[in-house]
């Protein structure tokens, strides 16, 4: 049984509109420590906006976010900075800092945000690079890395901040099919270590193997949610089931 105190994140009824279009409509998500939730659903359904709202890259119009029982005041900059520092974000297109080496992509936030000194930051960054198998790439710039290496570096950069939660926004969607495997392996490794995650993905193996719960989003709402065993059971007529079937068919056509 999940108790209130196990919950690390509580998102309650958050809404967001852009220019009169409602992108998120009173969405609520609760997350326990070590839990992994996977967001699926059609493009434009609000998955990306939900993730961006959870770490306030996009500040919600309404609703509440509580991190470890502390309510975030959206009007207080300090609250937003603290929330973002504790909630890591992985983007579809990596968003690495092009002018910095792999090592400095990680050290810059350690030094500027966590106020570590140069040596401390480098030590920590090297540790994270080793963890994602990029130990020998620290002097290379993002433009010199493959797509899979870029995403692994982005994951290392986020992990160096010791986030309590990791948000992943389609982490494998911009990758060449041959490079997806190495990123999936890193994400699975995080799951094994008990990282708390919310992930938007169309990667069927991540959905089947990692999700504690699937959230199916459409038109800015969560229209279906439940553990994969229930939603994706054979003969089930859930929206999630239909969606995953189509993903499977596509994977077979591709493969």
């Amino acid at each position: 049984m999940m108790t209130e105190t196990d919950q690390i994140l509580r998102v309650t009824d958050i809404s967001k509109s852009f220019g009169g279009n409602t992108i998120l409509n009173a969405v609520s998500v609760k997350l326990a420590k070590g839990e992994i939730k996977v967001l699926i659903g059609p493009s434009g359904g609000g998955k990306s906006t939900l993730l961006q709202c959870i770490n306030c890259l996009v500040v919600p119009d309404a609703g509440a976010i509580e991190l470890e029982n502390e309510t975030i005041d959206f009007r207080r900059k300090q609250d937003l900075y603290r929330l973002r520092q504790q909630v890591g974000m992985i983007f579809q297109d990596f968003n690495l800092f092009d002018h910095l080496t792999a090592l400095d992509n990680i050290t810059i936030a350690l030094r500027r945000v966590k106020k570590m000194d140069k040596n401390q930051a480098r030590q920590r960054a090297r540790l994270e690079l080793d963890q994602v198998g990029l130990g020998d790439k620290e002097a290379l710039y993002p433009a010199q890395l493959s797509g899979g290496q870029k995403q692994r570096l982005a994951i290392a950069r986020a992990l160096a901040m010791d986030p309590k939660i990791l948000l992943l926004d389609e982490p494998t969607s911009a990758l060449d099919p041959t490079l997806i495997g190495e990123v999936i392996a890193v994400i699975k490794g995080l799951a094994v270590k008990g990282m708390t995650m919310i992930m938007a993905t169309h990667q069927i193996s991540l959905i089947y193997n990692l999700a504690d719960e699937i959230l199916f989003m459409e038109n800015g709402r969560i229209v279906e949610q439940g553990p994969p065993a229930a939603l994706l059971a054979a003969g089930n007529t859930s929206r999630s089931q239909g969606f995953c079937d189509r993903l499977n068919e596509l994977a077979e056509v591709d493969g």
Partner: protein
Amino acid sequence: MPHALSVVFDSLPYLLQGSFLTIGIVVAAMCLGLVLGICMAVGLVYGNRFVKYLLTAYVWIFRGVPVVVLLFLFYFGLFNFLDLQFSAFTAVTIVLGMTTGAYQANIFRGAILSLPKGQFNAAIGLGMSELQAIKNIVLPQILRMSIPAWSNEYSIILKDSALAFVIGAPEIMARTQFVASRTYQHLSLYITAGIIYFLLTWAGVIALRRLERHLRIPGYSHQGNQ
């Protein structure tokens, strides 16, 4: 012609002394323009509507009014009106700095907009403040990207600095005109002045190109500057 040549030789040290003042004006004006340009570009991209209107108005005014008009307006008009005792050098530096600042603001603004917005978001997402993200992530990249456009600005300001002679700053042009009006060797002296300006432009542009090459990010090609 030998007489013309000897006039040039005799007056060369005097003219070259003027080039120190020219270089001083250009360096000071470019630095002032750099600071103004960066601040205004940040305001033009990230500022609220009021800030944007104000800065846009500034850019339009300094782009739309001839430098020589601004120079007279400031030196004889505004500074007098405010009872400021500025030297001709200071006045020229301020006017040229504010003018190039308007152009540099547009250069940097374009560079910021061409930078993938995701990098700013990633920096914010790691817990940096907006100002930290601008300082650590945005500026180092857009300044690199802007060097080619900036070297254009340098050559324009260098040549505009010749206008300093109209308010009596003893730079290259003023000294050339002074010697020419006394020796009547206009042709050879103005050719000499032209050569000095050309060499200063050339040296500066080459130096900036070196800097650009030195700062190039391995494996990365900036869009729109090649």
